[in-house]
């Protein structure tokens, strides 16, 4: 199973999300309460020793559909040294297989920086999608 | 404040009584242009980055208030707090770009000349070390240039200008007085002299003009101490003998500089090794700290020794011996200008303990003393302001009372007079004395000979 899919998916979450967003503005506290009962599809952050933020919400299939990404290698890249290896993809390995918690000799990009760069940089370039901490690390 | 009225722009202006005829006459002569030009000239041309930093950095935190005797004595009325006084004067002048009213100036001169002793205590309480005393002196400078300085103190400045002494003492009167004291003192010490104009003496002794004018006994005492200690000393017969400097406190810097120059030139003419001065605080400030700067000396061109330090030297070197210590309980007032102004406070305690049997501290003390309320030219503004001067230093009275001492030592002329007023006004039943009084009373009247 792919790491971001380990948690169960609530199929109604998309509708609910909208409702909850409205509720957010209208009844902050009830909304917070409602939120805490909702399960969103999140990345597995168990490799982080003491995560400071809730793990990022990421709905893999919806995202790729919306972003019209077909090629896995757009995200699941393979590097050899500093060189990007074209036409190879890495969807069978974990991000943390290559990116450790702290930058090291083999890989100068730490795991969290890798995630941030991967997602935020693209969202900035495309001028779409979440770019602020709390837009991915949504409170549980 | 009960008598507060509001002006159109809502800044509080206290309705001022017309207290002082010279201020009123001066105000009547002013025109709006002159006010504006003078204020802007002083604030822009006569100040520098220091002024700018003080005005632009003050966080309006009010911490300086705790330092000021005026604030504390007036039941914490914010109008008397250091920064409050700056607000009522400098801030408004800056805000209005010098276009201030006659009423404003009447209040400003009152505040700057009589509600601040320029004692610099507040600079020790402001976390930024903002020099409020300097800002008040700037206001005085403006008032001087507008010719609205209070009558009595202006008269002393006029006297300085004409005679180089503060009290219109004529040259022959001065010499007469010294000779008369010399004659009297010879009844105690057969060969006592008050040597005039003795070139190359070790010490030039200098005093303030009120001594020959009202307190000639102090000259007598000083002469006996010098004689008993076997000091090679002299006093000048010419102008320059008076070390006081009231112009320093009215912002008349030009005359202040002339006074200091004449003083040092007199010492130079007599080729003395050093200058010893009587027990006066502001005169010390003038000759040690302020006057020298105005005439271009970073530090005084002569070693200037305050009486306190000189007594310390005489007592520790054994040139003066104490026959019997002073019996009554004493307390000591630290004059700002020689404690906060020169760090002589520990010496003052040593001297007091060498002279007196029982010494009681008043608190706060040393650098943190409260001013007597007379200093900085306040007492010199004279009778019109005496009543408020008593109210404005209630804390000193409370502080004195708490000691329960019988005698109050005040090694400074201004303090001495100011404290005498306080003692009477608040019925404190204390005797105010100079250190010289006590030395004279307790010393062995035997002439010092080296090796004995």
């Amino acid at each position: 199973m792919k790491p971001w899919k380990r948690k169960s998916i609530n199929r109604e979450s998309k509708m609910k999300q909208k409702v909850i967003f409205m509720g957010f503005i209208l009844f902050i506290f009830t909304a917070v309460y409602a939120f805490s009962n909702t399960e969103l599809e999140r990345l597995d952050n168990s490799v982080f020793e003491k995560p400071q933020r809730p793990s990022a919400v990421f709905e893999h299939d919806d995202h790729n559909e919306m972003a019209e990404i077909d090629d896995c290698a757009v995200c699941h890249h393979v590097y050899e040294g500093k060189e990007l290896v074209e036409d190879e993809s890495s969807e069978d390995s974990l991000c943390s297989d290559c990116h450790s918690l702290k930058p090291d000799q083999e890989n100068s990009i730490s795991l969290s920086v890798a995630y941030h760069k991967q997602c935020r940089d693209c969202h900035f370039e495309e001028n779409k999608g979440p770019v602020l901490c709390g837009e991915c690390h949504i409170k549980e | 404040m009960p008598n507060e009225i509001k002006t159109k722009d809502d800044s509080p202006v206290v309705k001022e009584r017309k207290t002082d005829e010279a201020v009123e006459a001066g105000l009547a002569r002013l025109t709006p242009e002159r006010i504006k030009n003078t204020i802007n000239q002083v604030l822009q041309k006569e100040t520098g980055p220091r002024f700018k930093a003080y005005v632009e950095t003050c966080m309006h935190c009010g911490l300086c208030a705790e330092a000021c005797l005026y604030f504390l004595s007036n039941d914490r009325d914010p109008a008397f707090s250091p920064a409050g006084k700056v607000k009522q004067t400098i801030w408004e002048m800056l805000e209005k770009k010098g276009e201030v009213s006659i009423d404003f100036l009447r209040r400003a001169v009152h505040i700057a000349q009589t509600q601040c002793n320029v004692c610099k205590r507040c600079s020790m309480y402001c976390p930024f070390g903002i020099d409020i005393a300097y800002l008040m002196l700037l206001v005085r400078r403006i008032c001087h240039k507008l010719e609205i300085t209070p009558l009595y103190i202006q008269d002393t400045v006029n006297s300085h200008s004409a005679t180089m002494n503060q009290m219109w003492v004529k040259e022959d009167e001065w010499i007469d007085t010294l000779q008369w004291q010399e004659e009297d003192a010879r009844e105690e010490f057969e060969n006592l002299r008050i040597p005039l104009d003795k070139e190359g003496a070790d010490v030039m002794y200098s005093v303030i003009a009120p001594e020959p004018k009202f307190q000639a006994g102090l000259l007598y005492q000083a002469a006996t101490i010098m004689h008993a200690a076997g000091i090679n000393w002299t006093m000048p017969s010419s102008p320059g003998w008076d070390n006081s400097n009231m112009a320093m406190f009215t912002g008349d810097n030009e005359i202040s500089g002339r006074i200091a120059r004449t003083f040092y030139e007199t010492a130079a003419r007599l080729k003395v090794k050093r200058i010893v001065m009587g027990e006066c605080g502001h005169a010390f400030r003038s000759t040690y700290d302020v006057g020298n700067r105005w005439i271009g000396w970073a530090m005084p061109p002569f070693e200037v020794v305050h009486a306190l330090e000189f007594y310390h030297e005489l007592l520790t070197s054994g040139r003066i011996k104490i026959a019997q210590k002073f019996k009554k309980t004493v307390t000591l007032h630290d004059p700002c200008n020689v404690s906060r102004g020169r760090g002589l406070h520990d010496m003052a305690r040593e001297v007091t303990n060498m002279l007196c049997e029982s010494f009681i501290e008043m608190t706060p003390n040393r650098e943190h003393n409260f001013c007597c309320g007379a200093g900085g030219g306040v007492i010199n503004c004279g009778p019109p302001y005496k009543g408020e001067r008593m109210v404005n230093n209630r804390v000193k009275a409370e502080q004195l009372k708490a000691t329960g001492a019988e005698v109050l030592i005040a090694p400074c002329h201004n303090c001495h007079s100011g404290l005498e007023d306080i003692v009477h006004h608040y019925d404190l039943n204390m005797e105010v004395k100079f250190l010289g009084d006590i030395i004279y009373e307790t010393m062995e009247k035997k002439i010092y000979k080296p090796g004995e």
Partner: protein
Amino acid sequence: MNAFIDFIMGPMVWIAFLIFILGLILKIVLIIKDVNARESYIYSYMTLKHSLRSIFAWLIPFFPQSTRQSPVFYSISYIFHLLLFIVPIFLTSHIVLVNEAFQVSWIALDDGLADILTVMVVLALVFFTIRRVMVPEVKYLTSTKDYILILIVALPFITGFLAYHQFFLYRPMVIAHVISGEIMLILIPFSRFSHMIVAPLTRAYMGSEFGNVRHAKDW
């Protein structure tokens, strides 16, 4: 919208920091030039020893008499000023941003702790405000400008706090946070917040006059 966020979290941060740092440097340079031109005599009194002596004395909590007479205010002010620097510098979110931009990072506060410290800063500012309203000698000196200054410091903390908790309007809150933070930085050299560098200078001068000429302490 992302482009705008990219601007305020990218180039604008640069601009804010440059103005903040260059502004402070410019301020010092202008003061020194002005001193040289108009008040160079103060150098005859300034000594390094007495300057540092006074500055350090005033940095020690409850050493100066003044701090002992207003212990509550000074304690709060002391903590406020420390946190003013510590919280933003050691905040995880800030470090993450710096790390992504420059590949440098340093130890971070735990987010929960940072959150509490942020509340403390805001409470300190509330205290300053109440004091301005309640204490007569402070009220007397206070004008609207003083409240505005307090507000300028408070805004980055309040918006940062609200954003962190994602209570409401998350995106606008972060935008408000970043902009208010930048405004605060930009204003430091040009407002009374410049006491950050001017205060050591005035203290050094007063410390020198007291130590060197007056042979007395100024604390």
